[in-house]
C-alpha cells in the first residue's frame, strides 16, 4: 500500500465572484522512500498541493490517505497531530522560532508529543548532529548562516521521525554553494530510507529527485520516473 494515496482532489478558492481552481482533480500515489519533486511555474497549483500534502489545508473534494489514515475530513486539532507525527516541514524561509536557539527549535515539535526535557534534548542533539550542527546547538537563528538555519530546520523535521519530509523551495533563499550542500543532505536522507517530497521551480533541484511531477493549471501535466539515480547540480 502506498504511503500517500490521493484520489480526485480539488481545491477551489472564491476570489470575489470568481472561483479559482487551484487544484483540479489530482490523482497521485507516493510510495515509501520515494524522492519526488513537484515542479511548475507559479500559479500551477504546486503550493496548494504542498499545503494539502502537509495537512495544513483541506481539499474541497477528493480523498487523501496518508499512511493508511483518511485525513481529508479531519478536524484542525487532529490535523495538528498528523502534522506532528507524519510530516516534517522544510520551508524556503526556514521558519525557525527567533527567540529559541538551535536546540530549542529542534526540541519544539517534541513538546507537542509530551516528551520529557531530557529525552527531548537527547533526540534533538542527535538530529542536530545528523545535519552536522552538533557544535552550534546554542546559537540563535540570527547567529547562523542561511545554510545552517536550513540545517536546523531539517533537523527539526527529522527529529520526530516523520513518514514524509516535505520541502517547499528548500534552497530558494540560499546561494548556489549552500544549495549543493543542502541537496547532498537530501540525497543522503533519501539513501537512508526517508521519503522526500520537494516543491520547486528549479530544474536543477528537480534533477536530484527520482520522480518529477510537473503541474500546470491545477492539474498533473507529466509524471516521469527518472531511472539511474540523481544527477548532479550544475552550478
Amino acid at each position: 500500500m502506498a504511503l500517500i494515496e490521493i484520489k480526485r482532489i480539488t481545491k477551489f478558492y472564491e476570489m470575489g465572484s470568481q472561483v479559482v481552481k487551484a487544484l483540479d482533480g489530482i490523482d497521485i500515489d507516493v510510495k515509501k522512500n520515494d524522492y519526488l519533486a513537484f515542479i511548475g511555474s507559479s500559479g500551477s497549483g504546486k503550493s496548494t498541493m504542498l499545503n494539502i500534502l502537509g495537512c495544513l489545508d483541506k481539499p474541497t473534494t477528493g480523498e487523501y490517505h496518508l499512511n493508511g489514515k483518511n485525513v481529508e475530513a479531519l478536524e484542525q486539532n487532529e490535523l495538528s497531530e498528523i502534522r506532528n507525527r507524519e510530516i516534517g516541514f522544510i520551508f524556503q524561509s526556514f521558519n525557525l522560532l527567533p527567540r529559541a536557539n538551535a536546540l530549542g527549535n529542534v526540541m519544539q515539535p517534541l513538546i507537542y508529543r509530551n516528551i520529557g526535557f531530557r529525552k527531548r534534548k537527547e533526540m534533538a542533539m542527535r538530529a542536530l548532529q545528523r545535519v552536522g550542527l552538533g557544535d552550534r546547538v546554542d546559537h540563535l537563528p540570527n547567529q547562523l548562516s542561511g545554510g545552517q538555519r536550513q540545517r536546523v530546520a531539517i533537523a527539526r523535521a527529522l527529529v520526530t521521525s516523520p513518514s514524509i519530509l516535505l520541502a517547499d523551495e528548500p534552497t530558494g533563499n540560499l546561494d548556489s554553494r549552500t544549495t549543493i550542500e543542502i541537496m547532498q543532505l537530501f540525497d543522503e536522507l533519501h539513501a537512508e530510507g526517508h521519503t522526500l517530497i520537494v516543491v520547486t521551480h528549479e530544474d536543477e533541484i528537480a534533477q536530484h529527485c527520482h520522480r518529477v511531477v510537473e503541474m500546470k493549471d491545477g492539474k498533473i501535466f507529466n509524471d516521469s520516473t527518472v531511472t539511474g539515480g540523481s544527477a548532479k547540480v550544475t552550478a
Partner: protein
Amino acid sequence: MFFALFESARSALASIYAHGLRSFLTTLGIVIGVASVIAVVSVTQGMSSFIGDTFASLGTNSLTIQSYTPFEDQMKGIRARLTPEDLEMIERRAEGIASITPILYANRSSQIKYGSQTAFSQIMGTTYAYQDVAQSYTQIGRFLAQTDNLTRRRIAVIGEKVRENLSLPENPVNEYVEIGGEWFKIVGMLEERGDIMGFSQDDIVLVPYATMVSLQGNQTRTDIQIQLSLSDSADIEDVSRQLTTLLRNAHDLRSDEDDDFRIQTAEQLMEEFDQIIGMVTVVIGGIVSISLLVGGIGIMNIMLVSVTERTREIGICKAIGAKRHHILMQFLIEALLLSLLGGIIGLAIGFGLGTLISNTIPGFPSASIPLWSIALALGFSGFVGVLFGILPAAKAANLDPIDALRYE
C-alpha cells in the same frame, strides 16, 4: 497536562523577559491597582484592630446617654435635652448602676489661658464619679471631690496634653489658669492615656459640674451627657431597656414618638466605627477595582499586539504540530503571569505605602495586611489576567496555519 503548563510558563516568562520594558509598562495598571487596594486595606485594618483593642480596654460595662434631635427638628429649632432632673431621676430609680456622672461641655469658648499661653481644650463639667465611670485617675494631686461640686469651687483637673500646650510646670498643681474669664486653680493632673487615631485622650480639662452650670448662665437650655458604669451583676441590655423606659416617661413621649435620646455602649461605638471603616474599605476598593479593570484592558491590548507580532511563530508552531490548546495555554499563561507579576509587585508596594502612611502620621496605628487581602489581590489580578487574556489567546489559537505562516 502539567508538562504542557510548565512548558507554556517557561516560554511565557521568556517572552515577558524579552520585552522587559513593555511588560513592565503593561503591568503598571495592575501594580497601581493592587498597591492602592493593599495600602488602603492595610491602613484601615490596622486602624480597625487598634480601635477594637482600645474599646475593649474601655470596658463593656459603661453606658453613655446623650440627647438626640432628628435633623428635621433641628431645622425647626427644636432641641431635645437631657436635664439635671433626668440625672437625678435615674440616680433615684434605676437599678444596676455602680456610679453615674453628668458631663456638661463648655458651650461657649473652650479657650484656656496660662500666663501668655493660650490653648483650646475639651472642657467638661463633671463630678467625682467620673473617675470611676471613665477609669481615669490622677497621677499628681487629687480628683474633683463631692464638696467641690456643692460649693461650686473654681478648681480644675487637667490632662497631660493641656499641661504641655500651656507650658505649665512639671507639677501644675496650685497653678492658676483662666477659663471663660474666671480663674481656676489646678488641683490635679490625670494619668496619661495616649492617642486614639491621632486624637489625644489627654487634652481635657475637668471642672466641677455645678461650677460649669453656673458659668453657662442660661440654665433652661442646659443639655448634659450622662455617663454611668454598671454594677458587676447588672446586664447591659436590661439596664438599657430600663433607662429607655424611665427617660421616655420622664420626657412624656407617646408610644408613636421616637426616643429623644440615645443610649450608647462602648460596644456599639466600636461597631459603628467598624461599620464606617468597612464602608470606607468597600468604597475605596470599588474605586480601585476600576483601576484593575483598566490594567486588565492594558494587558489585553498588549497581548493582542503580541499575538499579531507573533503570528508567524504561531503558524510555525501549528505547522510542526501545536494544537489549539497549546497555543491558547501559552498566551493565556503569559497574560496570567504578567498580571500576577503586577499583583505581587503591587502587593509589596502597597504594603510599603501602608507602612509609610501609618509611620509618618504620628499616633496612627501600624499597618497590617490580613491574609485574605493578599489572597484577594493575587486572586483578583490573576482573574483579570485570565479574563483579559482569553480573547487574545483564543485569537491566537484559532489562527489558520497557512495564513499565519504567510504573515509578514
